[in-house]
């Protein structure tokens, strides 16, 4: 008796608290927020910036340098760094709990390039397109703008970008008198020749594990074959003929032994280890791999590595497609210093900090005009100098349901590569999963 009465009381109290906590928030209106966001702060304010380390080329951290530069023009705004995790997943948990819970901090957060549509649709990020002139976005890649927007609203300021390249062993190609492959078919032939000669265990390594990385790989090969996950009209095109060609090629690499069957467990690190350990001829990876494969000590292949834009399929007009990655700054709509937050996020996107990133950082600046500048050529870093030749493709992120869409792609294609599903069946399953996801019906 005593117990049940207590339990009842406690339950009633909890329900009341639930109601109280949830109705207390949710009263902000977007127009008011945008008015606040346009006003730069008058007095001194401190804002908090949730950001993982932005690596400098010398191994240091770019965040303090960017803040120092910002303070020169905005002396009244102090920036405190909240050390974000460096993995997308860890950051997502921390941020969605805080901002979804109504927290005013962090004011600005550095987030993945795939987040804007979903975060915008869920009120975790402030739309910023009305706060800057229309031509503000001109110097950035189109794919980046697509990725940052949903239904005409833009939810993030670019910070730095990333792209995929083909890394190859110069020494092994030279030994066999082979050119850098112009097509995927040629790459497979060259790899097999080098493998048969016993000069490498693996021909071509990439990322095939059940993760976002595989969606990136698939997006690229789909583009190579002339397809996409969603076509221009938003129809799910993942089971069309180009997709068949793309995924059959990946599966064929494993069947032929050019790619190890363990690729279905490979994330970036695993593919990188195989390549840097001297066991593979070709590697698909992001820009960071250049620094790592060329580093003495960490890599057995330092000085023997070349990097080029990815090739294409034979008979297709274009090559050099690369999945666009990177990080952008988002504004927490609950921030009490929206004006200062916008000023800082905008500063990170603009030329001064982009030039700093170009000169010192181990990441790619997002701004095309910076990448075109003479200073870019002077860096001598092939990932920077070739970036403007890439055809950047965006993942199908312009939907609030992107995580479900991506999950459908990577789980089904992973099964197809591993051989537990035929390619056609896996792609049809992916199509129906994505259709359900876009209707908001996928778990």
């Amino acid at each position, binding site marked *: 008796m005593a117990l049940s009465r207590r339990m009842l009381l406690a339950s009633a109290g*909890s329900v009341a608290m639930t109601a109280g906590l949830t109705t207390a928030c949710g009263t902000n209106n977007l127009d008011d927020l945008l008015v606040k966001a346009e006003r730069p702060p008058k007095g001194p304010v401190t804002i908090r910036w949730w950001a993982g380390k932005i690596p400098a080329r010398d191994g240091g951290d770019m965040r303090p340098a960017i803040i120092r530069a910002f303070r020169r023009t905005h002396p009244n705004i102090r920036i405190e760094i909240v050390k974000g995790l460096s993995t997308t997943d860890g950051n997502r948990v921390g941020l969605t709990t805080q901002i979804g819970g109504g927290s005013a901090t962090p004011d600005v957060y550095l987030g993945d390039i795939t987040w804007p549509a979903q975060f915008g649709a869920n009120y975790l990020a402030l739309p910023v397109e009305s706060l800057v002139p229309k031509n503000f976005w001109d110097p950035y890649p189109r794919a980046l703008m697509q990725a940052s927007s949903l239904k005409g609203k833009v939810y993030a300021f670019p910070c730095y970008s990333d792209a995929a390249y083909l890394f190859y062993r110069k020494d092994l190609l030279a030994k066999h008198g082979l050119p850098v492959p112009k097509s995927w078919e040629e790459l497979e032939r060259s790899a097999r020749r080098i493998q048969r000669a016993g000069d490498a265990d693996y021909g071509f390594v990439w990322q095939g594990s059940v993760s976002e990385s595989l969606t990136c790989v698939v997006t690229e090969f789909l583009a190579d074959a002339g397809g996409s996950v969603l076509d221009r009209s938003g129809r799910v095109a993942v089971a069309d003929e180009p997709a068949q060609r793309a995924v059959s090629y990946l599966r064929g690499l494993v069947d032929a032994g050019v790619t190890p069957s363990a690729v279905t467990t490979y994330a970036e690190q695993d593919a990188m280890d195989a390549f840097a350990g001297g066991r593979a001829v070709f590697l698909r990876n992001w820009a960071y791999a250049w620094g790592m494969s060329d580093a003495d000590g960490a890599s057995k292949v330092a000085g023997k590595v070349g990097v080029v834009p990815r090739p294409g399929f034979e008979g297709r007009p274009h090559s050099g497609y690369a999945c666009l990655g990177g990080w952008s700054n988002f504004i927490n709509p609950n921030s009490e210093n929206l004006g200062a937050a916008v000023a800082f996020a905008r500063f990170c996107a603009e030329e001064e900090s982009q030039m700093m990133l170009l000169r010192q950082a181990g990441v790619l600046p997002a701004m095309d005009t910076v990448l075109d500048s003479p200073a870019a050529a002077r860096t001598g870093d092939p990932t920077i100098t070739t970036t403007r030749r890439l055809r950047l493709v965006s993942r199908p992120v312009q939907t609030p349901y992107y*995580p479900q869409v991506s*999950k459908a792609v990577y789980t089904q294609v992973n099964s197809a590569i591993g051989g537990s599903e035929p390619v056609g069946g896996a792609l049809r399953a992916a199509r129906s999963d994505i259709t359900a996801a876009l209707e908001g019906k*996928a*778990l």
Partner: protein
Amino acid sequence: MSTTSTTSTTTGGARGAAARTAKDTRTAGRTAPRGSTERRLARAGWLYASPALTLVAAVTIFPILFSVVLSFSEVHLSYGGFRIDGFTTDNYAALAHSSAWFQSLAFTVGFTLVTVALELALGTAAALVLERLGAARGWILAVLLLPWAMINVVAAQLWGYLYNGTYGVVSWAIEALGGGEPVILGRPVPAMAAMAVADIWKTTPFVAIIVLAGLMQIPKDVYEAAEIDGSGPWTTFWRVTLPQLRPILAIAVLFRTLQAFGVFDLPFVLTQGGPGTATQSLAILGYKTLFQNLSIGPGAAVATSTAVLVLGCCLLFLRAFRAQVDEGGR
């Protein structure tokens, strides 16, 4: 083994101590002299128990209830936080229509059954060994506890390192023994087995320590009596040790089941739920639904349904095990 009455004292009582606890406590409330003594004892009981119970209730009831409420609500985010818009059972309907949920359930149940059974057997064996050890016991206990003490994510990363497809020592050993080029984490069955091994390594100590504490409680004269009766070690174990261990084993099974049902870090680090969705546990599904998809209602429904299912299993288990949860006080 005889069941002595509650009034028996010292050695006689000790002999049947654990075996009679069930009846013992049941009768305590009924046969003890009614009235002031009992009321005084009950008051003392509440006094002793209330600090713990109050704290638990104060901190945990709201979050749990909140989750349950969310699972029955249309939840939307808005500028400033959550917004709950009305009652709905759609979140649960979404589960019932989702093959992902059933797959996750199947994997989680299978994983739980296999790992808990093996851990119970191995843990009991380890505890029996530890009990018989002399001076070395403390040291071996410390060694045994190391895996358990490791941060889950890190332990998972360690196994990921060992299972790695290119340079992992386990893969290397399988290949060296003529097993071909293994893809441990890339095929459904090997991936599940690998995960079970990692889990057994990490959590068998949990069972061993619990059982060890139970073994130490068994009075020596019980064994002496069995020896006089001429039972061999095997018979003694089944007839004497095991019955005495029952309450403690019940806890081990109960809490291991709860933990295994919530398995998260191992699949999250080792396979991300793959290959395909072969190792996507309910906890991973709930995590992805809540934090990746930001589908708060369905995510809360995954969590709540998981909790209800496990709780149901635990209650059935307790009933079957007759482990005295609800004796006394009724």
